[in-house]
């Protein structure tokens, strides 16, 4: 009966271990990965992150004139592959984990891109920012072919070669 009293000096020595979480700071280490944050200034809308994302938490949705990079944190597995693969280093891994919400709609966050239109067929094929980036990177770029979608570009270059002969 007195046997349980043995625990009293042990508990007195160790003291309280319980963390006072809601009133105290949570234990977040240096290597912890939380929700990601897309920097809208840096993002060009190339879609590298949407292709690497294992659960497709990042996805492209076309809404008329705009292309939307949608991040659904409810499906994110916090692997950080999008941040590794982003060529513009636009994705930052934050330490945010208090993401609970009573509505699924609140868990989405969108980055809106404007699309450029093909001069020939009127198809929307690439974001304006990505096109400008390519324009700056490649020096000898035929200007008349730049604003054409890949299919029209093929036709245009074929017509040109046939005209030359």
């Amino acid at each position: 009966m007195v046997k349980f009293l043995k625990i009293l000096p042990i508990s007195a020595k160790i003291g309280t271990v319980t963390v006072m979480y809601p009133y105290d700071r949570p234990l977040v280490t240096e290597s912890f990965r939380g929700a990601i944050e897309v920097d809208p200034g840096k993002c060009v809308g190339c879609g590298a992150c949407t292709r690497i994302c294992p659960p497709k938490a990042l996805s492209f949705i076309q809404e008329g004139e705009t292309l939307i990079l949608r991040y659904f944190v409810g499906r994110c597995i916090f692997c950080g592959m999008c941040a590794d693969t982003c060529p513009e280093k636009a994705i930052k891994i934050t330490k945010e984990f208090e993401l609970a919400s009573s509505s699924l709609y609140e868990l989405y966050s969108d980055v809106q891109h404007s699309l450029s239109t093909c001069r020939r067929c009127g198809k929307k094929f690439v974001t304006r920012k990505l096109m400008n980036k390519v324009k700056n990177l490649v020096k000898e770029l035929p200007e008349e072919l730049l604003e054409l979608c890949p299919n029209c570009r093929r036709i245009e270059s074929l017509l040109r070669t046939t005209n030359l002969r």
Partner: protein
Amino acid sequence: MKITTITSFSEKDLEKALAKIKRSIWVYHLNTGSCNGCDIEILDVLTPWFDVERFGIRLVASPRHTDLVLLTGPITVKTLSKVIKALRAVPRPRLVMAIGSCAVGGNIWFESYSTIGGFYKILDKLNDIGIVVDRVIYVPGCPARPEAIIYGTAVLLGLLKPKTHYKRVEA
């Protein structure tokens, strides 16, 4: 002693019950094909380190005794009938907490043939067959941290305001 059971109740009674539920709630753990990661985190919440019994939260063995169902996993087709049975046994007001990215959005199995892909997909169907879920809280995380689960409970009970909001920015 005669035990009276309430078979019909008005919306007013339900609101009263939802207001009263701010104090201690009893939880029931429902695994619907989870990988065990979120289940271990739920176990973590109950251990002396995070000790949710200081808020009066207790784990119970039967859905008939519970206020809040802790749902983990993407709801596989095999477990769907059991999920419906367990949720039907829960008394009103019926609260559900979807823990982990599987239960919230389906994770990497969101378009798989053998899973439903998240709790939100069966929410309307449950409503149709008469299982009304009064409040749902989604706790993302893979697995959800014990702190995130405690935070989710606080948001569910209205003690804290949720931090995340829908945002749309121009690039």
